[in-house]
């Protein structure tokens, strides 16, 4: 088991520009079941992706791939033709919120929005729109979701992941890779790694993902990686108190000055709220093993599991 996505997931890509094409190719090489693309100006065309798979040489897995991806004008049409239930959004910022809403209206169950730089006002409207639907949004401004060995949706490097029993949830991109890499090196594989994104208005939050990991029989422990700004980590800590599984964590931004946005639109300490200190304190109070430095994230997970 895993959460959100697995080898049977049929995936649609929205926005087949340079970035969308690049990561679609990487996803297919990883083994993701990409079934179609939505890109109005190229509707009717077919994109061919081919090359050597990431698991070339592994017994029982194909060495090469060749996928002819049909391009549709609308998500509605793509869903009708392909039966896709998940979409990944690479649409540029100005049209990204609309793309999210289009996917929801077309009945897509899970929308993973990679796009960075979507206006907050657009995301406020998109979240309001999603309220009336059964669609789950992950992101925006996130690396995506990966279930190692089965399905990779997003921009994370596939090879650092390894199948296992740890759930990963994070607001950051490269910092997540750092955590996953440490886990893998310590022999702690992952069930699913979810990047929830660095924007102030996002879809899925820590609590949603923690709930899914708690319910997933294969996941035995969870690591959550947060950063300054907002109160999502504090809310997550409250939820962790009710969890049966061990949780480790890390918060980036202890040294960030107040009032400055640290790269991510949502990473800002304003009016004394959203500080790393407050988040770390809340997490420790909930029994989360908090890594002191980002170099110790894997070790913290081992400690939480009682293996160190």
């Amino acid at each position, binding site marked *: 088991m895993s959460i959100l996505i697995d080898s049977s997931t049929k995936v649609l890509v929205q926005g087949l520009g340079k970035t969308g094409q690049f990561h679609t190719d990487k996803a297919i090489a990883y083994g993701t079941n990409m079934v179609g693309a939505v890109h109005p100006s190229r509707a009717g065309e077919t994109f061919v992706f081919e090359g050597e798979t990431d698991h070339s040489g592994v017994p029982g897995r194909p060495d090469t791939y060749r996928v002819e991806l049909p391009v549709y004008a609308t998500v509605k049409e793509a869903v009708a033709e392909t039966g896709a239930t998940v979409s990944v959004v690479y649409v540029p910022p100005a049209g990204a919120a609309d793309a999210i809403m289009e996917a929801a209206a077309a009945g897509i169950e899970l929308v993973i929005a990679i796009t960075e730089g979507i206006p907050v*006002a657009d995301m406020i409207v998109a979240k309001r729109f999603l309220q009336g639907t059964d669609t789950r949004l992950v992101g925006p401004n996130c690396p995506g979701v990966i279930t190692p060995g089965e399905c990779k949706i997003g921009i994370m490097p596939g090879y650092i992941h390894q199948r296992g029993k740890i759930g990963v949830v994070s607001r950051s991109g490269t910092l997540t890779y750092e955590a996953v890499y440490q886990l893998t090196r310590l022999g702690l594989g992952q069930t699913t790694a979810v990047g929830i994104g660095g924007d102030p208005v996002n879809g899925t939050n820590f609590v949603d993902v923690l709930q899914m990991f708690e319910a997933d029989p294969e996941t035995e422990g969870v690591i959550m990686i947060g950063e300054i700004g907002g109160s999502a980590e504090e809310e997550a800590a409250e939820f962790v108190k009710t969890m049966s599984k061990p949780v480790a964590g890390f918060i980036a931004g202890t*040294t960030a000055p107040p009032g400055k946005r640290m*790269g991510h639109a949502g990473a800002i300490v304003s009016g004394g709220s959203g500080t790393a200190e407050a988040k770390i304190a809340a997490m420790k109070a909930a029994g989360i093993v908090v890594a002191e430095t980002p170099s110790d994230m894997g070790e913290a997970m081992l400690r939480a599991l009682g293996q160190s």
Partner: protein
Amino acid sequence: MKIHEYQAKELLAARGIAVPLGRPATSVDEAVAAVRPLVEQSGNPVVVVKAQIHAGGRGKGRFKENEEVRGVNVVTAGISGGIEAAEAEVRRLATEMLGNTLVTLQTGPEGKTVNRLYVEQGIDIARELYLAVLLDRARSRNIVMASTEGGMEIEKVAEETPEKILRKEIDPAFGLLGFQAHELAVDLGLTGDAAASFAKFVRALAEAAMELDTDLIEINPLVVTGDGKVMALDAKMAIDDNALFRHPDIAAMRDETEEDPSEVRAKNAGLNYIKLDGTIGCLVNGAGLAMATMDTIKHVGGEPANFLDVGGGATADQVATGFEIITSDPNVKGIFVNIFGGIMRCDVIATGIVEAVKRVGLQVPLVVRLEGTNVDEGRRILAESGLDVVPADSLRDGAEKILELTK
């Protein structure tokens, strides 16, 4: 992006939101020339001269060069002496303010140079309130925040008397509804004309927040005038950077003199740089990892000199610009490069670092930690470059090495 008070008021006035009459001035003569039309139009001989800087606390702020002059000065000379007396006093104040350094609680002790003034009509104030529209992240919606404690720092009010802060959520599908505005008016103790005037004001403000893509609009104080009108005496506004593409008029309001020159240069090169006070420069890919790198430097006993995220696809050019910006800070004694090559290959990054170092001619120690795709090739390129690059095995190892080298 922050804009000046006078710019915010222009944007609000264009949406029918009540603000005092005023004129911006970048010279003493312009400030003096503003007095007569203001007095004649408003019928009030009192004018106010306000420094325009991107920092709050101006009312209580004082100038370094002349402690008697404040960031906001009420000129009453016109009451007995007529327009000429008001003009003379404005001339004296503008001379003391323009080009001089204003120190407020928010500028820090070094203060900020005042390049612009705003000359405004005097207002007969009966009550001061607080009003703001800002994002409630937990609810993913904008809220209106209001308080009877106008003119005070809202963080202080929130801490000491949280019950005095009123909130209304704005549903993006409907905007702020009439009854919500009315409830706020009642809870603020407003009646009659003032209540009606307030309700109109707050609904227009909520709409402006959506239309203008603001991160924050803060009206502190919002005043009720002697004749029961509601008006924005001050206005602070920050616009969502991600939405500037659809507001070219607002983007043109950017005042780069208010920003750190290094940060401006970084932004223009597509880099995300924030200057800090320490001695160890860092260059990292990814915002979360960049913050974590700063934290690690601090943890091992050092002080980071900056935050610098070169993004997911940094070029040799960008890395070189990054090095130039970092080393333009005289406090920097060494640089720590921390790259987790995901999609980005380490050999490409390594080549970029070598090119950049050759171009910039680094004079300080450089520690590089590379991890991820093609890492062996990347490390080989660095080792064979002949450059004095100290390799590191992990984030912590790198932080410790650069600390040792800069001691």
